[in-house]
Structures are given as C-alpha cells and as structure tokens.
C-alpha cells in the first residue's frame, strides 16, 4: 500500500437550495464512508479557507491570496491509501466534486527511506 494525497479544486454551485446543499453533502459523505470502510482513508484531511496569505521569495513579501480563479484554488485535502497510482486515480473518480465540474489532483506521497 502506498499513500496519496487528494487535492480538491472547484466549488459547489453557489445558487443552491438548502435541500440541494444537503444532497451535495450527503453524496460526499457517502463517498467518504465507502472509502473509509474499505480502509483507504489514511487521514480524512481538512477543508481550507479560501483566503489566506502567500509569502514569496527572499524578501518574504506577504501577499493576500491565493489570487487564483475560484476553480483553481485548492479547497481541501485528504490522505489516501491505495495499491498504486492507477488504483488511487480509480478511487478519486467517485468524488462528487467532479460532477460539479471540479477536479481532484492525485499525488503520490514520496517515500523517504531514512535507513539509506
């Protein structure tokens, strides 16, 4: 088993009724539950606030941001256990964010072998 991080991008549609929002959430919970039951969730992760600061370069200049388009901002992450990258990609395909036009970036966590 290897570890992967799922980086979620994209937002839920803004004009949603309470009922629709609850439905969106339930879809997400169902997906998470399934992953969890199959032992794929290493760490459920966190949502990220939209606005923060970006610190850049040697000058350590601080900027408001990230100033990316809403669809490009990472708004959450999760740590996943999967056999290999294709397996992790398969798992990501159940993510409801995809149906809303968002994306999941699947990145293997580099294994650092301290004994070497």
């Amino acid at each position, binding site marked *: 088993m290897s570890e992967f991080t799922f980086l979620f991008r994209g937002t839920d549609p803004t004009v949603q009724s*309470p009922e629709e*929002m609850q439905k969106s959430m339930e879809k997400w919970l169902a997906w998470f539950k399934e992953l969890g039951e199959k032992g794929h969730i290493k760490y459920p992760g966190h949502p990220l606030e939209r606005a923060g600061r970006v610190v850049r370069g040697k000058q350590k200049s601080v900027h408001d941001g990230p100033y990316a388009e809403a669809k490009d901002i990472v708004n959450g992450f*999760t740590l996943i256990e999967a056999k290999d990258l294709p397996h992790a990609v398969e798992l990501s395909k159940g993510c409801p964010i995809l149906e809303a036009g968002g994306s999941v970036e699947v990145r293997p966590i580099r294994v650092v072998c301290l004994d070497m």
Partner: protein
Amino acid sequence: MEPSDHLFRREAGRMVATLTRVFGVHNLALAEDVVQDAFCRALEVWKFRGVPENPSAWLLATAKNRALDVLRRQRTAHTFAPELGRLLESEWTLAPAVEELFAANAIKDDLLRIMFSCCQPRLAEEAQVALILNILCGFSVNEIASAFVSSHAAIEKRITRAKKLLAASKRLFDVAAPAEFAARLPAVHRALYLLFNEGYHGASAETAVRAELCHEAMRLAALVLAHPHGATPASYALSALMCLNAARLPGRVNAGGNLTSLFEQDRSLWDGKLAAEGIRLLELAATGTELTEYHLEAAIASVHARAPQAEDTDWAAIVSLYDLLMSVRPSPVVALNRAIAIAQQEGPERGLEVIGTIEDRDRLAGYPFYPAALGELELRRGRHNAARKHFRAALALARNPMERRFLKQRVGACERGDPPEPAILEPATRLQGEVTS
C-alpha cells in the same frame, strides 16, 4: 452520523426567523445570506470531518457567530432590530443579547412571528403561502415553482414582491399580544390550510413533493397549537383535519405509481396512528361554540377514517356535514362533493340532478374532477357514450401524468363497456387557483 432528512431545509426556517429578529425584518435579505453562509460552511467542514453530534446546534452556532461578526462590523453602517436598539451597540450587551435570541424557546416564537408576519392582509393568500414555503420551510423558488406546477418567473415575482412588502414593515408581528394574535390567527389557519391542500390535492406529479408540503403544513400547525394563544378550537380542528387526511396519503398512490380512488384504496395502508391523533385533536376542537370549515372538513375525514371498508362509509353523515359546510363556506367544489356523497347514498341519477343545480358551476370549468364526476355517474347508470365524453373532457384538463393515466383508464373502461366500478377520486374542497377568493 447521517444528517436527518431535510435537516438543512428545516433549519433554514429556524435560522432565518431568528436572524430576522436580530437584524430586524428590513434586513431579511441579510439574514438569508447569513443562513446560506452557514450552510456553505457546514458543507465544507462536514464533508471532511463528518456530521457533528448535534448538527442543528452546529448550524445555529455558526449562524450566531456570523451574525455577531456582521453586527460588529456593520454596527455603524446599518440599523438593526429596533427592539434591540442599544443592546446591540455595546460590546458588553451585544453577545448576551444575541445569545438570548438564539435560545431554543425564543426560536419557537421567532418562527411564529415570521409566520404571522407573512399572513398579513396586504398580501394575497397565494403570496402568503409562497412566502411561508420560502422563508419558513426553506424551499427555493425553483422547488416551489415545481411543486405548484408554475413558472419560475411567476413564483419569483410573487416572492420578491411579498418579501419587499414584508421588509418594508417596521417590525415583525408581536405574538405576545393576545388581541392581535387572535385577529391574525384566521389568516394563518387559512394559509396553512392552503399549504396542506396544495400538497394533498395539488398539481405536482411527485408524490414525495406533495407529501412534504403536507408535512410542512402539519409541522407549522403544530407550532401554532403549541403557543398559549394558539390553542383555539379552530387550531385543533385544522390540525385534526390535516392528520386525518394525511393518514390516507400512503394509500392514495398504488405500487404502480397510479392514483387510486377512495373506493379502491387498500385501507390497511392508511396510517392508523395518525388517524387516531386526528380524532383526538378533533375531540379537543369540540369546545366552545365556534364551528369552522376546519371542524367540518375534519369531521368528514373522520367518517372516512372510521370506515374499515369503503362500503361501510356513513354517507348520510357525510351529506349532512357537507350541508353544514355549504352554509359555513359555500363553494362550487364543496357543492360538487356534496352531490357525489348524495349519489353514493341515493344513486347516480340523483347525484347528476344535484350537480345540475350547483349555482356557480361555471367556475368548475377548468377543474378536471368536475367532468370526471359527471363521467363517473353517467358510467354508473350505464350511459357509456356520455361517460366517455365527460372523461375525455376531464383528460384534456388533467394537470399531471398521474391524473392523465387515471382518466385514460376511465375512457378505456367506457370504450370497452366495462361494468362500472366506483372510482371517484378523493375530491378537493377547493379549486386550484381559487386561492385569492
């Protein structure tokens, strides 16, 4: 844990009601924004961390904190609830004042305050119902439009105008004043009754949607009953009528998704508990001298509930209740129902005769169950051709696929010359679109 069904929709009403109290009714839109914001946060956080132990409390606390932010940040730019006035101006009193407004008991009253405010005489009844659905029940314009089989634009216009009017009123209705409460109560009953009927007899083809409307009406009616000034005989009768009719909901559509008539329904599907609750409420309604249309309609529903089989129905009792209903609240639909009950008792010829004497029966022209009733009675006396003509006319007026399927079957029965089976649908007591009468 899993969130309960319609949690967000239900909480939306509670939160908007309380926030409107905090911000003042003129800031209704701001209250709605804060609620939307709380849902967005819940959506983001719960996705990753799961649904909290007490999701309602979580949502409420989130809305409260957001409200405090808004109050602190915009204190100087905005005027908020005039009743709270100075309390909101100082940091010392702000938090405790808001805290108190978010306490459980206060919220119940807030819901009633908005409900009573929505039922103001300056708003047409259909606007009141739409507003209640939108603000108190958390239905979006789209959802209301689809439940009413109406256009998005029409409902949006209705709600926007109603909200403007509501926001222009200086303050929310004061539910603590007994005289004002009593004066506004009939309008509230009426709106809840219409809401229930929209679910029970409405045009939406979605059974689930219609059952939801019924449940919302029952929930709000129970809130009225729970208020010390609200527990009047008419309130009990209204709740009784809702319970007794809702008890039959599980039998109205069969396994194939087709409408079934009162005569064909599998009565073992009826909700006996709900019917018993209805009868209990009807007994509580029988105090005092007031006899409302709700008493009578509940009594009619109780006659059906008490009949184990359709053949056991006490039609004589139903006819005399309709007689009384005609004197309390006459309408061509009530008259039509009375005629159908008479036909049950005295035969189809007599029924047709009585229908022929309904004074304003031209108002039934757009109502599919008027020609359907004529067709039914003609069919029963063996005049298949006349019956088919009426069912065809009814078919042309049908409002959804379920009604169409039902009426097509009747047309088919006439063409085949089938022996008549009694199949009159449960009649509504009012017409669609009659709401402004």
